[in-house]
């Protein structure tokens, strides 16, 4: 815990403002550890690596043909032509394509793992419409074989979210897709937490069946507003405590509330909203809700109708995470169009993301993005591979608050790289080698780099 020493200036100011000269005996300041389950992730063994002669999609909207990528000390060092470095491991990628590591902003790996048995169903705390107090990381089973399968599909970073039964489902956690026998060993260092919220059918169905709020969409909105109002008071109470303490008083700290801590984290700008929200009219209301309570509405997930409000999303700085073609499983998924992602992306300052929400399609986010690209181009768009790749790399990193760390092949960023056997937007494309922080974590042709979960070991 940090001791707090009020500055002389602050103290003088306080005296001037309050006209109060007495100085109280202060108790130790109440400060909470905001990172109680810290990352213990360690980069796997790595060497300076130079990948040569690839078709490179940088994740910044650029395509470089016959280009080289140099990875040094876990970072992208240089991308260009005819690079040469003494002592580097060279990989000839002639005829192959190279992209940033693929990022999935919406996964339930580890919390709804394979095998999907009763005792592994840990993704949805369906006991109250507001469970902001639960953290998905506390449910992650790191032995989910799905992590290995996703890695073979080029996934280097993924956000694990709680389910969507609740208005507030709890905190999500962003993981490095490295094998580990603890959750902390996978946790992306310094990644912001996400808060899962859910609009629409799921919360009102789950709680409506129990005759508690919400049973309607207006009930959903009331539920969010009551929670944010309470969180606003909680935040104010803590700020008052901090201010009084800083003023030399000896205030009593508010009672700590684990649920409100998370909501306060959003209001403080430390935790990012990840909102399961399909429909145009609901997303528009969620944006207004965020303005009412002064936070940012974050990323809309499963945003089936994002194309109807593409301008609004861009104007407000929201990312929309979308599928290329899932639809029809419920009413709020009825208005799918194949070009959704491209329509959202076409607006200036947009943030279009392709996500999976599936242990199966997370293995093929490249194909998911490809489907959108081709269908959009069939209908008058001009989407290039160098643009489409941003939907599953740079834009996804932005959605997770990691744009400064990963998602593109810029010098100084984490060396998260996938080498593909061909254009990744082909049905025949396969990831051949995957690097996280410059370390090889997967090689299609070398069993040494093919991890296996404890669960699969020795099964026959």
């Amino acid at each position, binding site marked *: 815990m940090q001791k707090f020493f009020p500055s002389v200036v602050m103290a003088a100011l306080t005296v001037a403002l309050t006209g109060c000269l007495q100085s109280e005996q202060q108790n130790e300041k109440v400060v909470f550890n905001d990172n109680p389950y810290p990352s213990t992730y360690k980069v796997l063994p790595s060497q300076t690596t130079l990948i040569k002669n690839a078709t490179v999609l940088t994740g910044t909207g650029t395509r470089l043909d016959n280009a080289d990528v140099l990875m040094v000390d876990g970072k992208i060092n240089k991308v260009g032509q005819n690079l040469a470095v003494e002592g580097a491991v060279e990989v000839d990628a002639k005829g192959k394509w190279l992209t940033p590591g693929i990022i999935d902003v919406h996964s339930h790996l580890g919390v709804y793992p394979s*095998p*999907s048995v009763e005792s592994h169903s840990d993704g949805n705390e369906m006991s109250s419409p507001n469970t902001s107090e639960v953290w998905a990381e506390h449910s992650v089973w790191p032995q989910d074989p799905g992590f290995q399968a996703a890695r073979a599909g080029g996934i280097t970073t993924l956000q694990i979210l709680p389910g969507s039964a609740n208005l507030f489902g709890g905190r999500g956690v962003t993981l490095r897709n490295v094998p580990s026998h603890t959750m902390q060993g996978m946790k992306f260092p310094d990644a912001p937490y996400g808060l899962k919220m859910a609009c629409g059918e799921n919360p009102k169905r789950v709680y409506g069946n129990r005759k508690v709020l919400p049973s309607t969409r207006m009930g959903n909105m009331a539920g969010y507003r009551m929670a944010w109002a309470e969180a606003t008071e909680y935040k104010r109470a803590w700020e008052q405590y901090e201010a009084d303490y800083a003023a030399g008083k000896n205030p009593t700290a508010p009672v700590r509330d684990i649920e409100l801590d998370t909501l306060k984290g959003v209001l403080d700008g430390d935790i990012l909203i990840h909102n399961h929200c399909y429909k145009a009219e609901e997303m528009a209301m969620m944006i207004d809700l965020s303005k009412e309570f002064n936070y940012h509405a974050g990323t809309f997930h499963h945003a089936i109708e994002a194309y109807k409000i593409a301008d609004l999303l861009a104007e407000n700085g929201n990312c929309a995470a979308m599928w290329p073609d899932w639809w029809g499983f419920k009413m709020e998924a009825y208005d799918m169009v194949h070009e959704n992602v491209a329509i959202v992306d076409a607006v200036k300052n947009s943030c279009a993301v392709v996500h999976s929400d599936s242990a*199966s399609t997370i293995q093929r986010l490249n194909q998911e993005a490809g489907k959108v690209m081709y269908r959009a181009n069939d209908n008058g768009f001009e989407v290039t591979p160098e643009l489409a790749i941003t939907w599953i790399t740079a834009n996804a990193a932005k959605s997770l608050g990691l744009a400064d760390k990963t998602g593109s092949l810029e010098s100084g960023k984490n060396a998260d790289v996938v080498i593909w056997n061909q254009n990744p937007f082909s049905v025949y494309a*396969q990831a051949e080698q995957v690097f996280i922080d410059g370390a090889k974590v997967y090689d299609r042709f070398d069993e040494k780099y093919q991890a296996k979960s404890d669960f699969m070991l020795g099964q026959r």
Partner: protein
Amino acid sequence: MKHFKLFTSSLMALAMASSTASVAESFAITNATVHTVTQQGVLENATVVIENGKITAINPKTVQADTIIDAKGKILTPGFIGAMNQLGLVEVGAVSRSRDASDKKADITFDASLAFNPRSSVIPYSRKGGITSNIVAPRGGEDIFKGQSFVVDLSGEFESVRLSNHNVIVDLSAKSKGSRALSLQTLQQTFADASKKLAKTKQKNKNEAKDPSRQDLIVNALLAGDKALVAYVDRASDILTLLKIKAEYSLDLVIVGAADAVLVAEQIAQANVPVVLAALDNLPGSFDSLHASLENAAALSQAGVSVALAVNGDTHNLYQLRYHAGNAVANGLSRDQALASVTANVADAFNLDSGRIAVGKRADLVLWSADPFELSTQVSQMWIDGKQYSTTSRQDALRDRYTTDSDMPRAYTK
């Protein structure tokens, strides 16, 4: 807006689509790269003649037809066949009154074809995947027999059920309540009892014999080989048990699911039993599927098993069948076998007169812009029973509405 230009020709295509769906007396598709999915293999610069909904000639010496369609070298394949989904029985999964695939009381006689809705929005959408016909599988109720599959075409027209009360579906997979042993035992006893009854009936004279029940008639048809038994089963040991039952009663058996079938591929091949599987299912979702793999379609095919691919899960994903085939190719299945796995092998498994380009077969045909399995490819033209259909769907209308500039609210853009 970046990367976007206003596009109106898709609206025009929509307008034209309805007018192109007319029956020609006869027509010929010329200059096609014809994937026959027969011994004839691939025919370059080939001509296929269609008359009254049937293929009447391939590469005739002289082409006689009312209309000639120049394929310009594009690939022509049999229409793809969907299988084991709820097409036309479910409009929206979570809308209870749009669901007709199951009923608690459903038994072996369950004929869900009576509820088939040819106007379902899933049908034109699925045509985007080159699907021309489909085997619909009801999900039944508490009985191990889930009802009878039926066959539809994807014309979306009112008379599009081709075969009702076709094959019998049984679920022998792991149960969350109770034991799979009872499912297998029930199946065995059903056939044992029916065989005994049939033997007794033969001994009696016609006047003494009671009319068999509706249930009995269906079981008897299975015993006679007039219907196939289509069984959901994943675990290898369960597959072997089922193969024994098949042998004992000479059943026409189709295995669906088959996640761990690779462990007993040889036995399945020897028994000449076709397998319907989901090519993308590669996770150990249960203790019955520890050997699920993207390479299973290839491995089974190499072992001599006739493999048909089906899109599992939500029927709205049916159009993705061709991508599943492409992924199976990426994971070792030969291109020829992959094409067969969505055409001829499905037809063979379910006893259909489609799935190949050969004289006498139904003219369910798809002309592709390029490689049918590739993401970048589209359906150029398609015919069902010799009649041309568009791939335009409600999704296209929504896209056009929201990408067409207007001063008025979107609702006025139609």
